[in-house]
Each structure stands twice: as structure tokens, then as C-alpha cells.
């Protein structure tokens, strides 16, 4: 069931049934932004639409129209092959949670073709989906105050790489040396929605 909820005077939060619906709505809105809308932020089950000056009812109508008849928007991205040193602090915990030996966790992580469903959380961060369901683990009970830059993690249906040191609650399985965020580059973020990622285990 789709729900539309006001988010203050300048926002609208749309709750959707699944990630596919989220990606479709976000793509549809971005392809044709309603007048005044500045930001469209997809997340696991929601899309937040925000503005500085817009007609809230007009925005809601545009959202409803897209939800009722989603237009197929194909997002074709780049392929990335990223090295990972599988030395994460939570590898043993992930093995315990999944009942899988560590070599099999690495095998599953490296044989999947991951897709960037959306970006956000922090500059350069991409939420990756498409992994084997056996790799789905809950976030840590308490987040770490500081996760190192390049840390590769798992949480729920997602995998991801922390672009820089930050607080974080994902289960860490490895380290990726490739910079995901270079603020002075013409395109600062390496990962964009629609890109695919294959991981490669390195010693």
C-alpha cells in the first residue's frame, strides 16, 4: 500500500511496498520534476520529495499519478570491478548469523552482480542490491562510532562501501581501496544509480 505523508511544510514522504516501486517512482520524478521540487531522496521503502516553494497538493498529485501508472525508465549504468580485502571486523559474526563458513560468504559476495539501487546517506555511498539472500544479516545492535574509510558492509538486503570514516552500523566484511568519493573531480561520486558492481577478492 502506498502512503503519502506530509514532512513539514516543504516535504512529502511516500511510503511504498517494495524497492522496485521506490526506484520506479524516484526515476519517474527525476525525469520530470514537479514545479518547485528540489530534491527526490529514495531509500529502502520510501521516497522523500522536498522543495523550498511549491504547491504541496500539486506535488502529491504528481506522485499519485506516477504511482498509479509508472512509466518504465531504464537506467543504464557503468560496470565496476572492485577489489576487496576480506578482513572485516564482523566476518566471524556474519558467519555465525548466516551459518555459512567464511569462504562461502566471500564466494557469494564475489559471484553476485550487485546493482546500485540508489545513493545517499553520505557523499559517494551507494546502496547495492542483488546479492544472494543468504547474505542478508541485520545491522549491528549498536553502531560503531567510527567505521574506517573503504569498509565494505552488509545490512538487510544491501551491501555497501563507506566512502570515508563515519559512524556506522553495518556488518563489516572487508576493505575496498578504490576511492568512492573525490570532491574535486568533475564527477565526485564513483557510483551512480543503475551502475553494477562485481567484487574481486584480493589478499
Amino acid at each position, binding site marked *: 500500500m*502506498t*502512503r*503519502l*505523508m*506530509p*514532512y*513539514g*511544510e*516543504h*516535504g*512529502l*514522504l511516500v511510503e511504498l511496498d517494495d524497492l522496485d516501486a521506490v526506484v520506479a517512482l*524516484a526515476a519517474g520524478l*527525476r525525469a520530470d520534476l514537479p514545479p518547485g521540487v*528540489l*530534491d*527526490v*531522496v*529514495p*531509500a*529502502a*521503502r*520510501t*521516497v*522523500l520529495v*522536498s522543495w*523550498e516553494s511549491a504547491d*504541496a*497538493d500539486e506535488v*502529491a498529485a504528481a506522485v*499519485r499519478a506516477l504511482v498509479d501508472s509508472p512509466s518504465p525508465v531504464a537506467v543504464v549504468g557503468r560496470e565496476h570491478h572492485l577489489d576487496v580485502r576480506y578482513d572485516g571486523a564482523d566476518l566471524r559474526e556474519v558467519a555465525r548469523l548466516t551459518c555459512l563458513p567464511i569462504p562461502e560468504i566471500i564466494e557469494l559476495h564475489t559471484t553476485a552482480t550487485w546493482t546500485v539501487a*540508489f*545513493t*545517499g*546517506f*553520505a*557523499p*559517494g*555511498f551507494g546502496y547495492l542490491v542483488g546479492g544472494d539472500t543468504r547474505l542478508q544479516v541485520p*545491522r549491528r545492535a549498536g553502531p560503531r562510532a567510527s567505521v574506517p574509510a573503504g569498509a565494505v558492509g552488509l545490512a*538487510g538486503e544491501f551491501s555497501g562501501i563507506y566512502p570515508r570514516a563515519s559512524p556506522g552500523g553495518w556488518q563489516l566484511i572487508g576493505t575496498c581501496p578504490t576511492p568512492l568519493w573525490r*570532491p574535486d573531480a568533475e564527477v565526485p*561520486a564513483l557510483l551512480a544509480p543503475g551502475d553494477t558492481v562485481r567484487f574481486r577478492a584480493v589478499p
Partner: protein
Amino acid sequence: MNLEVLRPGPLTTVQDLGRPGLAHLGIGRSGAADRGSAQRANTLVGNDAGAALLETTLGRLTLRASAPVLVALTGAGSVLLLDGAEHPRDTVAEVAAGATLAVSAPTWGVRGYLAVRGGIEVPPWQGSRSRDTLAGLGPAPLRAGDSLTLGPEPARPASGPVRVDVPGAASLQALLGPRSDCLGERGLALFWSADWRVGTQADRVGVHLHGPTLPRASAAELASEGTLPGAVQLTPNGPVILLADAPVTGGYPVVAVLTAPALDRAAQLRPGETVRLVPLRGHSLSLR
């Protein structure tokens, strides 16, 4: 013409009205935490409302002007000191060549806005000169020895003094947030009636409030979703009001969202101050 930074104070950053439109990349809008005061300072000196200016934190900024320039200070309860002589807030001041201008430590509030006619000219990042203190983006915070250049003379003249009352006890108007149902009826009533106290954790990312433990209707973990400055998140340690540099997504339920004027007031909250949150009835939004 330049402004030499003699003393930067605890934290002085360049701000404008931020860089909206990049949240889907994980980059927040940032910009002046008290947007109303920033715009007022710019208008006073004849700048566009969104020109780059200086945001001081607890004052104590000292600059020296190499040539005559018009400035205006708004926001927290500081005074402007021109070669030591006091000058009021919320009105244009003329700084002579070679004079020092200082922003005193404020007697109330936190953030002062010093606009200089022409605006602060530093290289923008992704269309804005705002410093995002969480992501570390935009111009670096001011340091002693920095030399700031100004933009071109604007077309508009400076404007006359504005009367701004010293704010009383903070009473922040807010709309019900999308996850207010995580609080039961009792919890919500307590949320609106409590005398919240501002904790020591207060910065451009957010202001932590301390007070009664709120009875929850649901303890279910929430998936991360988009957030906006002004959102009031309910964390295990109590409510947090998100300010200009808050992350663009968060996993704590948002039970209320401040109005724009309330957010400006929240940007001036000092640790130890008492805050009330006041419900504003939502305007009609035909929702299913």
C-alpha cells in the same frame, strides 16, 4: 580590497543559502543554520539574500578591512566593535580602511551573521559557498591569517535598520511528523507539553534535547529514510532537532518537523536552555 582574519573565534564559516538538489547523492543542503538572520544581514548591506557571508559561533571573530566597506551583523546577541567602538546589530555599519571589526561573544543565542557588501568571494563547491561541517565540503572554516576577498558591488543600496526583538523562551512550532505514530497518545501529549532542556551536544548537525522518557507505542526498528533540517527525530537518548548539516537520511522516527521560523530559532539554542515544542495544525494536504 580584502578582510584579514585576525582571530577566527570558536568556529566561523562561510555560508550562503546552501546547495539544494543534491540530496540523492548524499549531499545535504547545508547553508546558514538561521536562514532568516542570514538573509536579513545580506538585505541590510544591499546584497542578494543568498550572498555568501560569515556565520560566527559564539562570536569572538576579529577582522581587519583593507579598504572602506559596509557590513551588518544579525542573529545572536552580539555587538559589532569597530576599532573597539560598539555598534548595534541589525543595522548597517561603515568600516573605515585599516579598521578592525569584531563580533563580541553573544549574551544570548549562538550564531551571528556578518554580511559584507559585495559578499564573500571564495571558490564555490557544487554551486554554493556554504561549509558543510558534517561532510567536510565547501570552504574551510576561517583561520587566523586568512584573507577574504569580496564580490562586486551590488546594484541595490544598503537598507535602513530593522527592529528585531530579543527572543524569549524558545517555543518552537512544529507539524506532526510522518512517524508520530511511534508515540502513543500519552507519549505525544508528553512530547508537546514537556519542558525540554538543550543538552551539551548541539552543533550544525543537530541539537539534542533532554527531558522525560516518552512512552513508545512501537519499538520497531525503522529503515533509513530521507530527512530534512527541522525534523525532530526520536532517538534512544531523546529528541534531536536536525539542523542545516544533518545527514540526508536517518533511521530514527521523525515525530515532528519544525516550521521555517522555528528552525531559525532552533539554530540559536544554547546548552541548558529550555525549549517547548508546540503543535501547528497542518494546512490541508489531500492525502490518501
